[in-house]
């Protein structure tokens, strides 16, 4: 099972973490003992250091990628934790089922989707991934295996959902799928020019559209004079023919030494995205609707050797207009604006995990090319706005938040610590727990 020492990278950061690699192929394996430094690794789509374990051991879960059972009558699906959502979709969509919640990339593992309690465009109605999780097996470094669900080991269930892979290793999990008639999505898009309008559109779409999210041009600092596109959609009714999924595009075969997304192109790119003629209504295949970036293999390499950061925050609805306006104002002001900025109103579902990120409020995700100290200062500035608003920063996308920022956004971290496997750790966890070491 040992594969020696390997380099592991996350999605946003160019620097590799060296870890001892273990790649189990069968569920009955035993965890390696490594003095408290073991971390499961899925497909490396977390952006920062939450999936990395420099100097420790990594359980590379992609070898555990089997289906265990799929009831095509009830839509209950059990899989090993290393199976990709992409593989699940390939199996379930032709048989009339869909993921109950999907993040913006289908190249994450089932285990990773649980460990980060991922959310999607349907959070306002469906909550996050954890809300559709029926049960899973948790393997701890003491060798015990627990079945966890809302009824059995409920406390371990809550700690592991959004638990960043630190409560033990999820070997398999069972989820409840949602029925669909096929791969077609009915889509609508509408332009908006201020934040209030975005909130209005979100409220108006709340009941009638299962999927909503907005793209905004982050180069425009005035929340009353924005450029945004509000996307909403539903699974199409029976008999709707879906267009074919677009062919994948080749991405950069290696990381270029410099960024292909220099600040010069950010403004025209944003303008063109906004101004590009679009039909107000259409039928799309689910792939371009949910996963536009998945079409370009290794798109993260476009940011060059320095890589990029993501800054995703959530702020309470009551202060959303001011806080989101302030965040966009700061990014636009620095001229190192974000190429792809996404806004979404979260629903009122109570988070199921102790460390779940999705919670009632408005979330804003920003890409920030790494320009060294300038970028770090900008993000620290953004953090201050989020903290004042009583919000939180998404650990799956973070590579640099201050321990205090993490603790304020995730006040149950101490309770979580009692569930963390003493044999497990990650680069992220050591960083945000720094003062405790």
């Amino acid at each position, binding site marked *: *099972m*040992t*594969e*020696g020492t390997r380099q592991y990278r996350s999605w946003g950061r160019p620097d590799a973490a060296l870890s001892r690699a273990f*790649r189990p*192929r*069968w*569920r*009955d394996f035993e965890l390696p003992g490594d003095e408290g430094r073991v971390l499961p690794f899925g497909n490396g789509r977390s952006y920062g250091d939450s999936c990395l374990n420099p100097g420790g051991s990594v359980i590379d879960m992609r070898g555990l990628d*089997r*289906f*265990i*059972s*799929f009831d095509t009558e009830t839509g209950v*699906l059990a899989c090993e934790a290393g199976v990709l959502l992409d593989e699940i979709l*390939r*199996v379930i969509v032709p048989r009339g089922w869909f993921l109950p919640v999907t993040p913006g990339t289908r190249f994450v593992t089932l285990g990773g989707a649980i460990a980060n309690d991922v959310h999607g465009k349907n959070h306002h109605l469906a909550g996050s991934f954890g809300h559709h999780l029926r049960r899973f097996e948790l393997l701890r470094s003491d060798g015990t295996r627990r079945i966890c669900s809302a009824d059995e080991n409920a406390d371990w269930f809550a700690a592991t959902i959004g638990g960043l892979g630190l409560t033990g290793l999820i070997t398999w999990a069972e989820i409840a799928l949602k029925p669909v008639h096929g791969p077609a999505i009915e889509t609508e898009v509408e332009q908006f020019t201020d934040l209030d309008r975005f909130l209005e559109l979100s409220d108006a779409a709340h009941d009638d559209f299962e999927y909503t999210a907005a793209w905004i041009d982050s180069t425009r600092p005035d929340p009353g004079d924005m450029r945004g596109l509000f996307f909403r959609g539903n699974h199409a009714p029976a008999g709707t023919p879906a267009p074919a999924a677009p062919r994948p595009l080749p991405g950069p075969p290696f990381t270029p030494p410099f960024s292909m997304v220099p600040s010069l192109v950010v403004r025209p790119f944003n303008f063109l995205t906004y101004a590009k003629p679009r039909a107000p209504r259409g039928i799309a295949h689910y792939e371009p609707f949910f996963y536009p970036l998945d079409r370009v293999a290794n798109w993260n390499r476009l940011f060059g050797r320095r890589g990029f950061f993501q800054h995703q925050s959530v702020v309470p609805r009551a202060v959303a207009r001011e806080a989101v306006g302030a965040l966009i104002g700061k990014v636009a002001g620095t001229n190192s604006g974000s190429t792809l900025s996404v806004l979404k109103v979260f629903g009122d579902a109570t988070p199921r995990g102790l460390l779940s990120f999705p919670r009632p409020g408005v979330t804003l995700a920003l890409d920030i090319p790494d320009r060294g100290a300038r970028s770090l200062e900008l993000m620290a500035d953004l953090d201050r706005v989020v903290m004042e608003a009583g919000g939180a920063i998404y650990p799956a996308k973070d590579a640099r938040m201050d321990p205090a920022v993490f603790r304020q956004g995730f006040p149950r971290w101490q309770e979580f610590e009692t569930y963390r496997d003493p044999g497990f750790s990650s680069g992220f966890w050591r960083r945000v727990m720094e003062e405790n070491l």
Partner: protein
Amino acid sequence: MTNVLIVGAASAIAEATARLFAEEGCRLFLVGRRAERLAVLCDDLKSRGAEQTASHELDMNDFEGHEAMLAAAENSIGPIDIAYIAHGTLPDQKACQDDVDLTLQEFRTNALSTIALLTRLANDFERRRTGTIAVITSVAGDRGRESNYVYGAAKAAVDSYLEGMRQRLHKSGVRVVTIKPGFVDTPMTAAFDKGLLWAKPDAVAQRIHRAITKGGDVIYVPAFWRLIMLVIRSIPRRIFKAIKL
């Protein structure tokens, strides 16, 4: 509906190929050494769309067990359309050099067990005048090399056997496919440092699946190994014997 027999079903390459057969709705009969592993694979392949899955625990070095296994396969999924033979080990060359029994044992696993099974399969397929027999050998069989000639010799034996069998069965409309993988990143090769030449089992499986279902006699996977082996075979012997490969 296609009935597929897979021997050595728990190997990474066989498993990746089996998934492609499952997605097509084939009936699959899996043979391997550990029943509990085969059960895991059956569950997976069934969920992926296999019309039917069944398994049979057998160490292929138990030649006596071959006949019963083939009977069980026919009983459970019906006459075999595709026989895909993928079992094998990667011998420790150094250890074999000091151990006659180990060398013979490895030869038994990697050559004789396959030849024993092929003898039965050839007659069966010839009688039915249909089907495809596909066998995984290795680029290592193309020329003996200091670093792994026990393995290479065993694979070369199977290669030659298949070459003759292909001529014989051609008349009966039975296809024989020789599959020669290069370096594939699997548990069998876990101990190696992986460089540019290494391929993933998924990519290898797609090419194997295409050769089995669409056509091809001797395929190298990935394809560039045909060129590499052409070069290695064409090195003059007086030079070849003096280099380290």
